């Protein structure tokens, strides 16, 4: 699959599915800043109104990537590292994402992303840092209008599928989850979208958590679900063929949660390692202020 940045319909579905609407807020002569808004559909939430961990990371990857890309013009970028820390589980929405470029060098760029819940007095939901490598698309980048805009699609035109269904996630074993890749799950580079990989990481870690003893992952009641609360994700090589296979390994169980390593391989590309992640799982907290109102 070749890169195609000139076709507005190629490699865009993951970003469209995420419902993000992005507007550039860069001040004259200032560093690149973007503001994103997301009207959260029910299909992104569970019974506790917790945003799916994969979508949370996907949103950070998309807007962080655009921020790095605009700072890198006339080059463009691929994400290389993403770390995200979630502070609030249940949300009301809509979500707002604000970014700032932290560093731009000759070969890399770094952006910070803050996610807030407009429906909860703009409480900070998560902070993320997205690092990117600068690359030149073979056919060049199309002209980007400034201020940049990525308009959300009409929700009626998008797949009405829950997150794991949209990303074609399948459970293989207690520690193994896979995604069957199709073109909908790629980005304009023609490779597997970072959000697809992020969702596989979250799904693998959270499914692995189900097999842990009830006393772990935060020490709360086993009746409460747990989530990927902190994720460090390193994109090592492009995912090209699939299925992508995520395998989890326990690092340790602590007072605050359980630490899990997730390795993602592309089984159709000589089983090579596509991504490596470390995820801290924590159980839904009784003290979460929105839980009783969910």
């Amino acid at each position, binding site marked *: 699959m070749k890169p195609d940045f000139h076709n507005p319909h190629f490699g865009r579905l993951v970003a469209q599915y995420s419902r993000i609407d992005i507007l550039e807020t860069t001040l004259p002569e200032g560093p690149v800043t973007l503001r994103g808004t997301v009207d959260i559909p029910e299909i992104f939430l569970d019974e506790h109104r917790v945003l799916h961990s994969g979508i949370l990371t996907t949103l950070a990857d998309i807007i962080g990537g655009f921020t790095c890309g605009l700072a890198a013009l006339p080059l463009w970028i691929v994400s*290389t*590292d993403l*770390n995200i*820390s979630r*502070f609030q589980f249940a949300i009301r929405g809509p979500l707002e994402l604000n970014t700032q470029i*932290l*560093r731009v*060098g000759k*070969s*890399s760029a*770094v952006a*910070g992303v803050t996610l807030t819940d407009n429906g909860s007095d703009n409480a*900070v939901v998560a*902070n993320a*840092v997205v*690092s990117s*490598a600068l690359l030149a698309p073979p056919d060049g980048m199309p002209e980007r209008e400034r201020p940049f805009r990525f308009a959300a699609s009409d929700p009626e035109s998008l797949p009405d599928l829950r997150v794991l269904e949209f990303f074609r996630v399948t459970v293989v074993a207690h520690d193994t989850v896979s995604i069957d890749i199709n073109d909908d799950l790629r980005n304009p580079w023609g490779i597997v979208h970072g959000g697809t990989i992020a969702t596989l990481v979250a799904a693998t870690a959270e499914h692995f958590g189900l097999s842990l003893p009830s006393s772990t992952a935060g*020490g709360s009641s086993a009746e409460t679900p747990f989530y990927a609360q*902190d994720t*460090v994700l*390193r994109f*090592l*090589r492009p995912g090209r063929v699939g299925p992508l296979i995520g395998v989890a390994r326990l*690092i*340790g*169980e*602590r*007072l*605050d949660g359980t*630490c899990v*390593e997730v390795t993602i391989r592309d089984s159709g590309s000589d089983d090579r*390692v596509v991504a*490596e992640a*470390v995820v*801290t799982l924590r159980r839904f*907290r009784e*003290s979460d202020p929105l839980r009783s109102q969910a």
Partner: protein
Amino acid sequence: MTQLPISYPPAKHILRSLRYEVEHRPDFTSTASMEAGPNLRTTSGNVEIGALATLADATAGGLAAIAASPGWIATSDLTLHLAGAVNTERVLAHGRVLRRGNSKIVLAVDLESDTGASLGIATMSFSVLPRRDGNPIMNPVSETTTHTFMPIDDSTQIRHIHDAIGLTQIAGVVGGVESQMTDYVVNTLGAMQGGAVATLGAASASFALQAATQSNELFECVDLVITYLSLGKTGPIRASAVVTQVNIDWGTARVEIRDAGSENRLMAIVAATAVRVESSPNTDGSL
């Protein structure tokens, strides 16, 4: 054989406080170790996460330098997740290369006790830089195993790592800590070494969480996620923190580290998780 210039590391250096010993192998794996003496312990008796970060950074950095040869490297980021409190006498670090690209090298370091118990995992990425005069010379693709031991200086050995770094608290600043740029913390680029930056970040987060709970109980970091944005060369190097989450047993903080002597330039941001600890930790490595 690794050829480190006589000038690096200096006689009094953070790596020597660790009694750092490392073996790099031709298959781009490494095993390093540190002796976790009293100078590398918190007041609760656990091993300082800053010392563990220094171990991981040095192990991965040495391996990355070999992988990048003839180029040189600078740490882009460092993440360290502990399996729990660490209180073994000796910590082993097993380094492996996850990706070796032209401009970037990514590695993982698995931390273990000398009995093989998992203590945590670190990951790091390094930017590959053009070689400059003064960079240590590493064999391009090592054909033989190399072994390096950093002999200690007695005076640094007995000083606590915080004292040796010169870490002091800044009154009136949440999580405010600072240290001067000295030979003790310098890296091969003449900037503050990544492990020393981690030590500052961890101390800042711990103090901030302790202040947020208005208690005398200790918070010790178990996770550090550090993004290095610029080199800190002048000093003083200052850290401040914002508490992002606090619960009964643990909390999180976001730390900014700046070079006050270079127009207060932002050097690094740190996302830290810390747990409340008892003053007498268990002896089996668990909290």
